[in-house]
């Protein structure tokens, strides 16, 4: 794309101390770039809001528009705490409006069509929104329909749990798990074979169920089974091995190459797809994690990968280092919807957003950016209430600890639990405001 029309020279307006104070920032004073560029951000979740905040800090005069119909903001990493009975559902619910930076326009509608050739988006009501730059941050879609017999409205009854389906579903999952912990029986856990957000979450929930049973003195009355979709337990080999050892230690049985295909909610039978055919398993409690795909508006657009491993589920075809679209240079994708090998966590969003914003601002300023995203992903892998492991890794499966030599990544620590329970939410909210 030719961005020359947007380049108003390097009209860099120095941000005054007052301007910085206005956004409540303590960021180093940085030149703000003047522009009239129209920037449209699809999705006002973790990535969309953080990008809007960063862009409005760095640009002067840009027309920034957020498109999202959701008025509630969901702090998803807190779902696990709700499903562990430690927090009420309102802990994870905020108001989108509270995080929209001043001067940013919000269209309270879903995007229905993305036309990157015409550089415009059509909203659900038919409104046309033209852009010079587009940031796709629509998150992902939970494809419960892909599991035959699954009914989201029955979560919380008859031993059916699903932490992912929303705050109320997470609370209902806790009720079902708690009832199970009183009675005992067979509990099933697992994950889909698609890309998914927070790949550690299903593992965490197996550990939390084990812990709840132990605290109630009922561990001996229960059998816990983790059905892994492939031959490992986690995509990072060293973490996979650690989880294997912890599962053995806690007597959580593992089946490999088992993926949930169907569920009979009345009879409480889950049917798994395996290399040798369908395998039914009786359960008393199950935590269903559905397959995950890019939202339909993205899947149907030309922005999706056309071939390769990310094509089937419609993830956006971006360069893994810059998050810039490989075919449409003025388009970026951030967060869960980005078609990169790692990075479906809020922690990744925190690292991705400054990179993409820097490239976008460089385009406007007529310069280049050297910023690169290394695939940083982080997961406080809860191993029981009160302890967790701070697992941080990059595209190459290297462990990249934030506190090397201080917080051991593969050790179950109280300090990591403290981070998860106390530190993560305020850090996340500060990220939404572009301050972390």
């Amino acid at each position, binding site marked *: 794309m030719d961005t020359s029309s947007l380049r108003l020279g390097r009209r860099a307006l120095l941000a005054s101390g007052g301007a910085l104070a206005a956004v409540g920032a303590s960021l180093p004073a940085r030149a703000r770039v003047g522009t009239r560029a129209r920037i449209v951000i699809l999705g006002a979740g973790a990535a969309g809001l953080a990008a809007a905040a960063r862009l409005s800090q760095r640009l002067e005069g840009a027309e920034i528009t957020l498109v999202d119909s959701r008025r509630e903001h969901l702090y998803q990493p807190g779902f696990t705490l709700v499903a562990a009975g430690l927090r009420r559902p309102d802990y994870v619910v905020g108001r989108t409006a509270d995080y929209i930076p001043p001067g940013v326009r919000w269209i309270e509608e879903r995007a229905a069509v993305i036309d990157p050739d015409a550089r415009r988006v059509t909203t659900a009501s038919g409104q046309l929104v033209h852009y010079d730059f587009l940031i796709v941050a629509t998150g992902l879609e939970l494809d419960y329909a892909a599991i035959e017999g699954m009914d989201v409205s029955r979560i919380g009854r008859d031993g059916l749990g699903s932490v992912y389906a929303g705050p109320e579903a997470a609370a209902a999952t806790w009720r079902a798990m708690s009832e199970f912990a009183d009675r005992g029986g067979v509990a099933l856990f697992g994950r889909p074979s698609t890309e998914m957000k927070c790949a550690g979450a299903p593992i965490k929930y197996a550990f939390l169920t084990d812990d709840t049973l132990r605290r109630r003195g009922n561990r001996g009355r229960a059998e816990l089974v983790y059905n892994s979709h492939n031959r490992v337990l986690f995509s990072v080999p060293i973490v996979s091995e650690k989880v294997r050892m912890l599962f053995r230690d806690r007597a959580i049985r593992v089946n490999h190459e088992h993926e949930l295909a169907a569920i009979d909610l009345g009879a409480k039978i889950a049917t798994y797809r395996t290399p040798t055919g369908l395998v039914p398993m009786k359960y008393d409690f199950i935590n269903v994690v559905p397959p995950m795909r890019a939202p339909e508006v993205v899947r149907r657009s030309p922005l999706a990968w056309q071939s390769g491993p990310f094509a089937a589920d419609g993830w956006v075809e971006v360069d893994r280092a810059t998050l810039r679209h490989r075919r449409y240079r003025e388009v970026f994708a951030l967060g869960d919807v980005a078609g990169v090998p790692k990075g479906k966590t809020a922690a990744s969003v925190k690292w991705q957003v400054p990179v993409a914003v820097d490239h976008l601002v460089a385009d406007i300023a007529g310069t280049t950016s050297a910023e690169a995203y290394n695939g940083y992903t982080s997961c406080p892998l809860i191993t029981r209430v009160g302890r967790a492991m701070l697992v941080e890794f990059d595209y190459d499966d290297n462990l990249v600890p934030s506190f090397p030599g201080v917080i051991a990544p593969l050790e179950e620590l109280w300090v990591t639990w403290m981070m998860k*329970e106390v530190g993560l939410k305020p850090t996340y909210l500060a990220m939404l405001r572009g301050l972390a």
Partner: protein
Amino acid sequence: MKDFDIGTLVAVLRELLGPWLWVSLGVAAVAAVAFLYVVVRDRGVVPSRLVWSEVVAIGGGVAAVLITQRVTHSGFSDLGGPIDWVLLAALFIAGAIGTLIAAYAAFGLMCGGSRRRTVHAATPRADGYAPLARQASPRL
């Protein structure tokens, strides 16, 4: 953590505590000012008052640890590695120091500006010996 600096820390604390950040900073500032006032007024630290403040401070340190554990649904059995013990000690020390300053200031204000109980650095006696109190507990 990418770009973790003091600004990030303040932003995170603001999200964590909301208006309570300013309340707690205000309380800390009042306690610190009161402490300084009492020390300047008395021209030194009163040993007996300091000892009582230290006793209260131990309670403050213990309270900091227990409150943190309660808020975070955790307990002593969750301490896993050395860094956990460091954190526990840091919480205790922070709670104890805060309480010490506040308690000393509160005792000082309650007692009023009684000069009698103050240890003066240099009040030479006619016989050349230092005052007894000074020998027993040197001025801090």
